[in-house]
């Protein structure tokens, strides 16, 4: 993001920049650490994104150890009072919510929900639609035509509305949220992967493989898939952020996870019902968590895209919220 003109492996340049290939980077980095350090130097904002993502993962893993209270527990103080909407202070760093739960503990545990939904939706969704996109582009003809009409039709409905409709049918639960988001990401993922495969398919090595009599399955697995791995990685990064924001939206609207589950989106519902003026902290911290985490995934995704697959610039337009 910081620098516009990046020279790519293939010698192509980003949107119109006319720089000759000046820097040839060795293909085999000495160690993964050096590769990470090089990435961080080239893409400082991407590195910031990576740190945010790392912080999310660590928080999610250590949640029970670092959170002061049980996120679902309604606190009773020594004099048996329930601390409803106590402002942030020494006892409760982010204050308490409308029923007397500790917000910091809920935000920390919320990291688990977000990461669970995000990883679940991406591992299932991006993987499955990745395969569909490849098959659609490779098979062409009727298969492609049918898949493309479905994609077109689904592109016409906002992602959030698809996901809401699926939730209405399935009923609210954590795993149903994942299923709904997976269906919601069908159209944009298939479309992006398909266009990538269409160009890979015409490459000489694919034509050569076909010429020596390799079967389609072999060509797809050995030649096309490896050349689409970068795009898989980039899509996975973006869609983690996308899934997290969708889960938060669903829970915010009251059709996502059940209310006692500490979801960042669900924590904001009360704030939107006019409580924000009474207890701003209850509306600010969970939203801030969503914002920072999604920003982290987006920055990381932008940097990965610039480094690995600059032709995709603008592909994120397809994302819906």
């Amino acid at each position: 993001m910081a620098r516009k003109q990046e020279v790519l492996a293939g010698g192509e340049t980003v949107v119109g920049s006319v720089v000759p290939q000046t820097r040839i980077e060795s293909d085999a980095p000495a160690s993964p650490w050096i590769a990470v350090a090089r990435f961080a130097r080239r893409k400082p904002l991407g590195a910031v994104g990576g740190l945010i993502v790392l912080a999310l993962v660590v928080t999610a893993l250590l949640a029970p150890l670092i959170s002061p209270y049980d996120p679902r527990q309604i606190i009773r103080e020594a004099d048996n009072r329930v601390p409803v909407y106590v402002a942030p202070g020494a006892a409760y760093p982010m204050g308490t919510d409308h029923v007397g739960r500790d917000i910091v503990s809920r935000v920390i545990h919320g990291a688990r929900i977000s990461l669970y939904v995000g990883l679940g939706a991406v591992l299932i969704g991006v993987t499955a639609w990745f395969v569909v996109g490849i098959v659609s582009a490779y098979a062409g003809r009727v298969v492609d035509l049918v898949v493309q009409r479905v994609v077109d039709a689904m592109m016409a409905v906002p992602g959030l509305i698809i996901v809401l409709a699926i939730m209405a049918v399935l009923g609210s639960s954590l795993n149903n949220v994942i299923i709904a988001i997976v269906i919601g990401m069908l159209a944009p993922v298939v479309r992006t992967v398909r266009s990538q495969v269409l160009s890979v398919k015409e490459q000489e090595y694919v034509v050569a493989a076909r010429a020596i009599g390799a079967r389609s399955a072999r060509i797809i697995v050995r030649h096309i898939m490896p050349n689409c791995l970068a795009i898989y990685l980039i899509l996975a990064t973006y869609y983690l952020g996308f899934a997290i924001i969708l889960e938060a939206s669903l829970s915010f609207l009251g059709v996502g996870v059940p209310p006692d589950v500490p979801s960042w989106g669900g924590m904001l519902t009360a704030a939107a019902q006019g409580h924000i003026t009474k207890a701003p902290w209850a509306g600010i911290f969970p939203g801030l968590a969503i914002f920072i985490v999604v920003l982290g995934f987006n920055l990381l995704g932008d940097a990965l895209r610039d480094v690995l697959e600059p032709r995709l610039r603008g592909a994120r337009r397809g994302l819906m919220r």
Partner: protein
Amino acid sequence: MGKYAIRRTLLFIPTLLVATILVFTLFWIVPGDPALAILAGGEGDTGSVSPEQLQQLRQTLGLDRPLYVQYASWLANVLHGDLGTSLWYKTPVWHQLKDRFLVTMELAVMAIVLAVCAAVPLGVTSAVKQDTGLDYLSRIFSSIGIALPTFWLGILIVYFLAYFFEWLPPLGYATVWDDPLLNVQQLILPALTLAFNDLAFTARVTRSSMLEVMREDYLRTARAKGLVELRVVGRHALKNALLPVLTVSGYQFARLLGGVIIVESIFVVPGMGTLLIDSIIHRDFIVLQAIVLLIAAVVLILNLMIDLAYGVLDPRVRYQ
């Protein structure tokens, strides 16, 4: 042009048909039986449902007929403008929808106009002043805009207005015909909230499209023959750079309609979004179906119009 228009329109029909099939099947992926799900309510309490009730509802919904017959009769009704009868309100869906549809469209159009009006100058400035402080600032702004969840932004706007100006958005709703001023007062905040996210996207597209055009030969020619920079950027570059912006704005509008639901529920706007949430809570699948179908149709028609306009503006696409 005629040929292109016909080809593009012919592509639109199967897509719309597929959309109706998808919307119709949505009803059918209900685990078990839609009738049972409706009677059991949101909690899935199937114990209290009597077989007679179930049988009766199946008959009223026509669930006892083969699937393709159901689809055909549903489609025929839709084409005649009959979207069905709400399961919860027991009134024709169109009655529920028509006013709310207009409210939602007004909100969405307001938002996209606000977004485009701000995003195009922002994107152009960013491209013209590439790699300067101004460019970085506007790019940081758009990164933030994309990551900001709409619902959180809405909440924050309400809070800061209440805190600093002790002003709360007026509740209730007046149509633009009854009270134009109040109508704008009610819709301006939700529209701004929606526009913010959209603005970030559109500014990005404008910037990259503008950067691409700025390197074209005809721009060098324009400069070489001594045109003022403002005219070079305004007439020669912007005109061409705006074409991709127009293309994405169709899908942007679709995205925006998703955001409308959230914003309507924060600012209590009586549009389709609040009805959609209601219909999910009451498991009113008929209303739900109608809303999804209506939105899909609006977006598809809009995209068709944009593509046709594109054919007029850029003759190259006609020959692809």
